[in-house]
């Protein structure tokens, strides 16, 4: 059997060899037959159970159930709302006050939690689309109030807000609130973490502390505001690549090792201890697939600046030396 096929099946073929293999396969009928049966043999062996199936399966099942129970809640609410609407329609003239009171008391909330290593997209009933990054939590009312569309975020999210001049959209986080009319922007605000940032792509946003809305920061497109040692710092966005997380890619552009590690800790919900502080001065640029996992990212970074790491699955911890 051709060595290139063997390497391909073993998953150890270089890009150059891969191109070579596929152009050979075009002309050589026998080799093609050999290749097709080798691919199928490997697929059959993939079907057999393996060591990590159970833990992966349980993790995925949890996410699956969470997703589907959320959907069900929405559907249940819709049914409920439909009944309520009929009731309101009949009584609107006679029991106007009562109707207002019931409207307030029927506000229910939807909650969406995205586990580590995952991401999600949700469309609200006003048409606003929200992408949620790993380990993030979003809470929003099933129906928005008339004067304000308010959602609560713990984590990272990208918002594409449908414009409504009468009804501003507010993202509430543990460090600041962000008020917009209709724009596209990213918010990074994990509860209990020091890091906070918001980046604006289109339109304008206002950033403020809810207890002191008079002192607010206005942002223009392609600006980013970060919280740095308790102070707000505004700078311009160099590249929109950091938004690639929406498509399942983590992009780091000339970012210090320490900052990358902090993000990986959040996105993959794991403690990473860097024992060699010299590593923190190195800067890295690169794009990684979220699905490949934290260890794959570390292995690639090892090739740029050598370091050793060990993973302790019981303590959910990685040590880097």
């Amino acid at each position, binding site marked *: *059997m051709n060595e290139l096929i*063997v*390497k391909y*099946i*073993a998953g*150890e073929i270089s890009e150059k060899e*891969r*191109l070579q293999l*596929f*152009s050979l*396969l*075009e002309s050589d009928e026998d080799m*093609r037959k050999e*290749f*097709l*049966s080798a*691919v*199928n*043999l*490997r*697929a*059959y*062996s*993939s*079907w*057999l*159970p*393996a*060591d*990590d*199936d*159970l833990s*992966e*399966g*349980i993790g*995925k*099942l949890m996410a*699956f*159930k969470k997703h*589907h129970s959320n959907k069900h809640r929405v559907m249940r609410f819709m049914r409920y709302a439909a009944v309520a609407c009929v009731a309101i329609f009949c009584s609107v003239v006679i029991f106007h006050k009562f109707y207002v009171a019931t409207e307030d008391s029927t506000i229910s909330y939807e909650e969406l939690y995205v586990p580590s290593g995952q991401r999600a997209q949700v469309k609200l009933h006003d048409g606003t689309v929200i992408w949620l990054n790993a380990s993030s939590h979003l809470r929003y009312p099933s129906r928005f109030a008339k004067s304000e569309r308010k959602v609560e975020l713990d984590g990272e999210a990208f918002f594409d807000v449908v414009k409504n001049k009468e009804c501003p959209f507010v993202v509430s986080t543990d460090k600041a609130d962000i008020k917009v009319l209709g724009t596209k922007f990213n918010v990074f605000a994990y509860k209990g973490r020091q890091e906070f940032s918001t980046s604006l792509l289109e339109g304008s946003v206002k950033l403020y502390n809810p207890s002191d809305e008079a002192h607010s920061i206005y942002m223009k497109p392609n600006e980013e505001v970060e919280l740095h040692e308790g102070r707000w710092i505004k700078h311009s966005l160099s590249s929109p690549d950091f938004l690639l997380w929406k498509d*399942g890619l983590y992009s780091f552009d000339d970012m210090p090792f320490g900052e990358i590690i902090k993000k990986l800790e959040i996105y993959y919900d794991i403690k990473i201890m860097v024992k060699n502080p010299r590593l923190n001065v190195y800067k890295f640029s690169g794009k990684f*697939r979220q*699905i*490949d996992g934290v260890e794959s990212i570390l292995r690639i970074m090892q090739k740029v600046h050598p370091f050793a790491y060990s993973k302790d699955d019981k303590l959910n911890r990685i040590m880097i030396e």
Partner: protein
Amino acid sequence: MLMEEHKETRTVEAELDLFRDFDRIYVLYFSRMRRFAEEYILSREDAENVVQDIFTMLWEHRTSIIIRSSLTAYLFNLTKNRCLDYLRHQSVAENYKKEQVLKLSALEQLNEVVNSDSDVERIIREAIQRLPEKCRVIFIKNRFHGKKYREIAAELDLSESTVETQMGIALKRLREDLKDCLPLLVFLLGC
């Protein structure tokens, strides 16, 4: 002894029911279906989505679907057919076109009847028997013992590795893992 183990896996399969045991079926088969899909679909993300879509469909229709074959046969064919649908309709970047076309041809040729995991084991055994001896050893060591191609080539000790001993060890271990994990599953999923 081997016969008994076969019987045991089969009875377990027969007892699982889509409506009652959705969670267990998901946990037992998700990774296997994903790995299988990844063999043909070049994008890992799309391969996983194909499998997630299958489970969404099963979940939504869990009360109405009647599985007439064995569960393994049903899930195997479902995965295969959904991958075929995907490959026939999805286009990829230019430098991956040839690879995807060949993967589609391979999957179109995958026509052996699969009723149970032991069928899959038999198909693998037979296919491995047909390989030239050196490839056979490389395949077994690479797939079932997780060895790198480089390491195997360096070992050079190919004589002791007959198919029966190597495959026997690998498959016995797989079967035992599956058997061991069932009580654990019952505990974890509370059913």
